[in-house]
């Protein structure tokens, strides 16, 4: 499927949608949003890209294997949970950075955990979509 309008629009939309997904991810702690929804939005944007061009290009523009993405996300989430153990606190206790970081706001292990969720959701959705779409192209 190749449509000039779709591919041109996608080129403009993709960065916006990805930025938006990050925005949703970051605001999640206080406003509607979070890693889950953010991850879905990001996946939708990449799916759009894959439809507008092809899966091969979508994979290349990701620069990282989707399954690696899943692994990274799981590691990050697990790591966020393990970190408090070093301070003698129970698994998954949320730790907060004393001072807020510009743009991101207050940083905690809940946030890094959410980033992990984001990565897993993106990885899982794209693994499924890309694999199926490749099956399609063959």
């Amino acid at each position, binding site marked *: 499927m190749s449509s000039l309008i779709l591919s041109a629009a996608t080129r403009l939309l993709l960065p916006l949608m990805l930025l938006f997904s990050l925005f949703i991810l970051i605001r999640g702690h206080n*406003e509607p949003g979070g890693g889950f929804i953010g991850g*879905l939005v990001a996946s939708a944007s990449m799916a759009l890209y894959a439809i507008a061009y092809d899966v091969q290009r979508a994979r290349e523009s990701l620069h990282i294997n989707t399954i690696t993405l899943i692994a990274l996300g799981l590691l990050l989430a697990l790591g966020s949970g393990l970190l408090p153990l070093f301070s003698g606190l129970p698994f998954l206790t949320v730790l907060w950075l004393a001072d807020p970081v510009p743009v991101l706001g207050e940083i905690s292990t809940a946030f890094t955990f959410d980033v992990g969720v984001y990565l897993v959701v993106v*990885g899982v959705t794209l*693994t499924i979509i890309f694999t199926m779409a490749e099956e399609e192209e063959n």
Partner: protein
Amino acid sequence: MLTAVLSGFILALVAPFLHRLARGFTGWLIALLPLGLFIYFAGFLDPISRGLVFTEYQMWVPSLGVNLSFLLDGLSLMMVLIITGVGALIFIYAGGYLHGDPNEGRFYSFLLIFMAAMVGLVLADNLLTLFVFWELTSISSYLLIGYKHSYADSRAAALQALFVTGTGGLVMLAGFILMGIAGGTLEISALVGQSEAIRESGFYVAILLLVGIGALTKSAQFPFHFWLPGAMTAPTPVSAYLHSATMVKAGVYLLARLTPVLSHTDEWRLIFTTVGLVTLLIGGFLSLRQTDLKRILAYSTVSSLGMLVALLGWNTKIAIEAAMLFLLVHSLYKGGLFMVAGTIDHETGTRNIHELGGLLRVMPLVALGALLAGLSMSGIPPFLGFISKEVVYEATLAYTSEDWQLGTLEGIFTLVEMIGNIIFVTVACLLFFVPFLGQQKETPRHPHRPPVSLWLGPVILGIISIILALLTELPALPDIASVYLIGPAAGVVYGEPILLSLHLIPPAVVPMLLLSIATVAGGIGLYFALPRVRRLIDALDIGERYGPERLFAQMVVGLPVFSRSVTLLTQSGYLRNYVAIIVGTLVTLGGYTFFSRVALPVLGTIDVYFYEVVLAVVILVALALIVRSSSLFFMIVALGVIGYSIALLFILYGAPDLAMTQFSIETLSVVLFVLVLYRLPNLAQLSSSRARLRDALIACSAGGLVTLLVLTITSRPLLSKLNQFFSAASYAEAHGRNIVNVILVDFRGIDTLGEITVLAIAAIGVYALLKLRTDDTIGDDTESYEDMVAVEAHAEKEKESKS
């Protein structure tokens, strides 16, 4: 001590990266860790020989009584020194043996995990902590046996070992829990004081059998012995380390550790002496018929482990001393012999004794290692093996008892020991004479002089054996074996301190010495008669054809057949059937509970807004179109309309998170559906009107029930305190105002962790189904597509359940 245990795990994480830097030197480099641990623990020899014990205690799961408590006494010290000392040599050896292997880094990781787990196992004072380390050794053994995972027999052997030791471990866990109930604590050091209570608790025999099965499977005792020879498909460093020097001794260690708690009963003596002696004989006989160097060694290891178990079962003071000494001696010589066998294999490309000969000139230092180990195995002075054999004989000969029953048992025991020892001598001859002497033969690979790393281990272990033996006779120097190693270890097992004095030179011509001489003579005689004996054993064919291994093989084949028949009974493979069953169950059970317990809601007036009506109409129209349509594509788009309408409803009722999730999921589902759709055939036939009626009935009853439930719930005041709690706690405790997200990442973070793990597994499942299939049948098989859609629907459901 905790640091000492953890250091191995930590190094395991970085080992593959280290290997990229160090290349050929990785083995030497990693060996520094076990060597460091060896030196560290050797520092405890003196205080422990003076009767001190060291403990360390860390809470782990206090609610279950599980603590990271460690205990360093004579027994654990000796084990730790064997594990780290032999470990250091094994890492050096592995560096030479695996040189150039593409997965070498991974190998070091596995081996380090094993070493750390094994150190943890022997240091653990808490039964459940011990169990965790125990299972870790089983798992790392599984990974190491299956290291060459592209070979089917390698995988099968790995699985077999895991099945046997893993099942044994679970049985043992049940025994541990019973022991905890009977003794009131899980700390082994505290259980020692409770041994009276445990023996009289009524659980005693059950505990003995359950824990016994755990120990016997791990130490490859009859009838569980068969996994050990199978495990020989592992690379030789693994066989030398796990399957002769350390892991298989874990069962023996456990029996020794629990001797003060559980022994001194007829049951103990009966079970373990019998099993041990039977294993000793079977392992010995089976070792004689083998032609593969490693399998010969494996069966003779089974035999030696049988000797250890029998000695611990016999449970007298001298038997315990003999067991501890033989444990040390066996680790020294058998580890060395395995390394020799591996080097021969590495250099010549074969381990078959019929294809080997005359290697003495090519690898004199390896031959020296084999000679030292073989002499110790045969029990010839001045090796520690000689002293050990004397003490083993003394264990059954020392007390010639008046009681004729006991006397007969002692006689049988001595006879079996002697047969076992004779076979050891024969095996030692076989391993030295055949490959190294005689004419050099044509081998698959032309042998070269092996590098230092491949002969260092056996030679050092052999020299240690001589030094330890000589020190028993040199008054000017400390008698390390008696005073620092065996004495303290045996004292722990016996329950009171033992002042041990071993001697290389027997004080007089005692019966033991005569037995020793007869043993060596018998062994050499048997060596020369071996071809005839082999034919005899082959004719009898004990063990392998009708033995437990066959039973296991049948189980492995039978289990999938059984599970397939069960699956066929319950799984039709049609998604519609599953949905019908799930929804039907929900409606029946839910409806029954609802109508039998809950009064129907009284409906008040309900305010209906215009936009609600509009959305309802849109949904109903889309629904009607789906039901009437015969085009799959159309149905999916219409389903999307319903999904978006529901998302709009969520927004109207103040659930933005839910709505956003619903929107994204809906979009992605449509994309997925469309991708699958291309491959689906057009609907060949539409369901009959009867089937439609049935489906309509199921759908309407489900919808009706849910509507009723919602009306009932909303018609009465909400009693749940969850809402209040989360509203109040969300910002105060978790610094977040979005309750939904705070619940996901904070209050119920562990659920989320579980769910993303499930998601990941689902994605890998889809990937594997589509990418890794070997037969290309999916294209024309609609049923497989249903499966695929089921997987995908599962993943979707997971996502939806999140919101």
